């Protein structure tokens, strides 16, 4: 991967934090639970790191840690998105009732 200087990474980090603050600040309480669960699924992005660690031809220890990380992260990602969808599926307005 292309090496990016640390200071630039920090810059990206801070900017992303600001975006996160802005995105969430105006959410109605109705959606707090699905939002928490959806955001939680996104934090499973660490699966990308788990793939990179596991895929490299490291030693046995690296492999074991990597696979454990993949399992944990996949549970977070798959479960998180699915359960959020299950919750949101039920949010209906009065008009759209069958």
């Amino acid at each position: 991967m292309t090496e990016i200087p640390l200071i630039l990474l920090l810059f990206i980090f801070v900017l992303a934090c600001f975006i996160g603050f802005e995105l969430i600040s105006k959410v109605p309480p109705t959606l707090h639970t699905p939002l928490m669960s959806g955001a939680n699924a996104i934090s499973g992005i660490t699966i990308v790191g788990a793939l990179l660690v596991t895929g490299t031809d490291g030693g046995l220890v690296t492999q074991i840690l990597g696979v454990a990380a993949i399992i944990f992260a996949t549970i977070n990602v798959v479960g998180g998105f699915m359960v959020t969808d299950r919750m949101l599926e039920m949010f209906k307005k009065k008009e759209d009732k069958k």
Partner: protein
Amino acid sequence: MSQFLPDSIVAFLPDAIQLIYFVSKAFFIRGLKLLGSPATARKGNQLAAIGMFIGIIITLFDNQIISFEWIIVGVLIGSIVGAVLAKKVAMTSMPELVAVFNGFGGGASALVAWGELSRFTDPSIMGTSSLITTGLSIFIGALTLTGSFIAFGKLQGFISGNAITFPGLNFINIGSMIGVLVLIGLFTFDPTNQTIFWVILGLSLLIGITSVIPIGGADMPVVISLLNSYSGLAASMAGFVLGNNLLIVSGALVGAAGLILTQIMCKAMNRSLTNVIFGSFGGDSSSGTGGNDGGDKTVRETSAEDLAIQVAYASKVVIVPGYGLAVAQAQHVVKEMAANLEERGVQVKYGIHPVAGRMPGHMNVLLAEADVPYDQLYDMDQINPEFASTDVVLIIGANDVVNPMSKTSPSSPIYGMPILNVDEAKRTIVFKRSLSFGYAGIDNPLFYDEKNQMFFGDAKKSLQALNEALKDL
């Protein structure tokens, strides 16, 4: 997967991966934005899922990845476990499930950092900054893992929902946290030292336990929200370790979003975050029952028939649902009753306290499951001015969120928490199994108010009886 591609494409691959990562990030940002409105929320979640999917797929083309057997095994196991959990869980157990998923996410980030560290026989070539973020990633990830599982245990009832604490625990916790940070500093100078590493890991796991154990059950929503923020931060730190900006950005987004949500929760309970973390209240009966001067403690009971008449001839009824309603699985019966009342021309509204249920917005999800349209649900600020003109308030399985002690008794642990001002209504009916205390573990003078009537029994059975009585009217 890059070995299967012709060299001409491989040369562009690093740039292509970075570009696709941008697309992935854009999906996350757009997804989070859409999650903020009821009409678009589902689409937002799907967008975020797509972003995750393309992020994962393109990563497989990274030339760092050369073996796939273990990846496939891991992804398969994780997908099956995650899918089964997501499909099977009851909506009432949503807080537990989010806590568990969250714990796994945090644990995964710690493992990623640890795995990366384990690739080097001499980790000092990783450089000081990478070693620091490795340490932080393991610290935050590990404490998220154990903290989330303690929160899960408390919600599930495996661990007492009461605040378990002893004098000095806060100092031990703060001391351990400072200790871990110092050790991470030492670790960067001596990264081959196994002892330092194991102490960092062990202490981090321990801090997760000892910092959640002293927090009372009533504060679990705040804790889960905060741990959610931590798991994002842990992912972001793992991104620094790997120099992967997709992890850094997505983790930071979640970290910031979780923090905002935590703040909203704290505001709803009129408590500061430090108070929640270090205050240890809940179940502390010695300070909670202040104001019981042994005066009039009689309660007035009501029956299904009597209540049916009261609500059927009211012009406005507000339903205040609490977690007890969900436990009794009474959402559908409530909906049925509300429909019956509406047919009779009674105006029905639901007043939802921000911390009703055990997670912000949890009650909304439970009512949505029962097909209650979300435009009938009113926030605390919207419904409070309406109580004065309300004939009957039905408080079903809620307790602490309508406890007037938060306004009258400065010695009460919930003093200052904004509540639903149900005592302004002409009549309040409390559906409750017994006169036991609520989640916060304190008595409720509302039960003894002369405008209040108690309807004892299981919420679902009581409501069914009420529905029957309404039909007979």
